[in-house]
């Protein structure tokens, strides 16, 4: 392709001179220097992901094992975050809870993105009646506060991890499709889209080859910003008793009403899940903010 040749001439260093690893390492260092809080968020996330992935290996106790001899024990060297009303080790449950939180976050973000792009893109590209109706549907769904809608969906679907993911993905896909539609609208009168059409490219080709790659930064930003919200939504649902069913540990569920009765006697039951939730959402938000600053061309260099 001609454009590739031009690209190659423009870059002063030939592409094969730096390895991919070295290049991404130096990019990461630049990112860390320019966005220290974002880098901090990335580190927090990495640690939590590692914790979730290695949960089976690193838990000090069986997170499900009841221990009548250690009920409501305070934090100590043997139980770092104390134990709950069944004598289960809270620290182990926090570690396994990271898996619940992150797997819901990742699954929802990934599952929601494809229908969001498809709906938003098609709606903006074809316009007309289909666009009008689809957007009214989006309005309708957005008019119901997310927690109320999620509870309603969970009542319909019944409690399970899969259904939490489905309910959240549905909501995210609808909300994100609005943003994708906006991003596509902004591209439709770009000259490269017009010229692709003039040359006779099919609708499919224009969408897939010319529009999708250009809304990718928006996709990444929206996904990273939404990630924290998804984790909080799962926690809120589990807190209210409509999320991940017990005994699977969920940070929100660990704060739920049935445990609150014991919290006066055992406040550590409250501390660990709160800190874990705050830390993960803080990390995601910091990282997402920094990512947006770096990827969103309108904000680039504005600070």
């Amino acid at each position: 392709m001609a454009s590739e040749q031009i690209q190659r001439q423009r870059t002063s260093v030939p592409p094969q001179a730096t390895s991919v690893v070295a290049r991404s390492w130096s990019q990461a260092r630049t990112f860390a220097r320019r966005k220290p809080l974002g880098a901090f968020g990335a580190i927090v996330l990495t640690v939590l992901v590692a914790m979730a992935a290695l949960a089976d290996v690193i838990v000090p106790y069986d997170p499900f094992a009841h221990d009548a001899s250690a009920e409501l024990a305070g934090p100590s060297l043997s139980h770092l975050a104390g134990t709950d009303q069944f004598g289960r080790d809270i620290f182990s449950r926090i570690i396994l809870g990271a898996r619940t939180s992150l797997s819901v976050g990742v699954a929802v973000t990934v599952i929601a993105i494809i229908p969001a792009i498809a709906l938003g893109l098609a709606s903006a590209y074809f316009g007309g009646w289909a666009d009008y109706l689809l957007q009214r549907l989006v309005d309708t769904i957005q008019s119901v506060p997310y927690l109320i809608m999620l509870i309603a969906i969970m009542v319909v679907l019944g409690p399970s991890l899969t259904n939490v993911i489905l309910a959240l993905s549905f909501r995210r896909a609808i909300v994100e499709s609005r943003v994708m539609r906006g991003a596509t609208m902004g591209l439709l009168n770009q000259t490269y889209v017009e010229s692709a059409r003039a040359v006779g490219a099919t609708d499919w080709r224009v969408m897939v080859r010319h529009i999708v790659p250009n809304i990718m930064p928006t996709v990444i930003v929206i996904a990273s910003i939404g990630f924290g919200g998804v984790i909080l939504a799962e926690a809120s649902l589990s807190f209210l008793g409509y999320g991940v069913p017990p005994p699977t540990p969920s940070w929100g569920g660990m704060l739920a009403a049935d445990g609150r009765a014991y919290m006066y006697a055992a406040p550590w039951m409250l501390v660990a899940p709160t800190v874990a939730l705050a830390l993960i959402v803080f990390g995601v938000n910091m990282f997402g903010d920094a990512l947006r600053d770096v990827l969103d061309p309108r904000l680039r260099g504005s600070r």
Partner: protein
Amino acid sequence: MTKYAIRRVAGLVPTMLLLLVLVVVMINLIPGDIIDLILEEKYSKDDEARQVLEHELGLDRALPVRYVEYAAGVFRGDFGQSLWTKQSVGSMILGRAGVTIEIGVIAILIGATIGIAIGTISAVRQDSTLDYALRSAAILGISVPSFAIATAIIVFPAIWWGVAPSLRYVSFSEDAIGHIKIIIAPSLVLGLGLAATLMRLTRTTMLDVLRQDYIRTAHAKGIREAKVIVGHALKNALIPVITLLGLQIAFLIGGSVITESVFAIPGVGRLLLSAIANRDYPVVQGVVVIVGFFVMATNLAVDLSYAWLDPRIRYG
């Protein structure tokens, strides 16, 4: 402006009708025989009870018929009646709406005052230590879930000082001071979350506005710094902030489900939770419809005021 307003109001009609479709279809989507599920918990499974319930939920009629009936009812202000208490759903929700709105309004006052003030300070002192501290605090405020803050407010004062917020609701007319004491904690929880969101947007738009030529002109004219910031910059920076505030109404109502459940406040959020627990579907439908309409109306009001404040929006 009138043309724009008419178009926007007309756009509300299909959205409202679609919401009614979703709410009516919801009953059909519940897996299993919902009559069996309800009867299992409530009555013996005799045929008469089954027929009564089927009729009340409209399951003995075709879906389109049920939709028209429901929509016509809503149009007349009739949202059906509770399966168990036989009260009208409309009056149940109206009776509970007062507290929810009261807490929402106080939360907005708290959130807007703190958020806009801190956002402005942060923007004026951009990249100072204060700015970093305030921004980090705001992100932390968004990160800690409201139910965790609410639970902490209840548990820790009780442990440290032996004072627990009363969880026995009293209305304003019964005991004004007691009522305010109960209202203040949930309002704070919702308000602080709102403040964090508003702070971030205020800061961003203020930074943008402070770079505009008319601000430099104002400075050059020798106007006092405070007056430039409040009178010239903030006035213009607030337009998107007010829009966001309007859009946060939905967030506040959603949040009230949590705060009302934690602080035992008999508002709309708690009504919804108990209706779901009791499988009282007409009440669930009514809450979703009324809350949805309310959010649509506030969004419309925000859009119209936005167009009125900023003439550039009024295309058409």
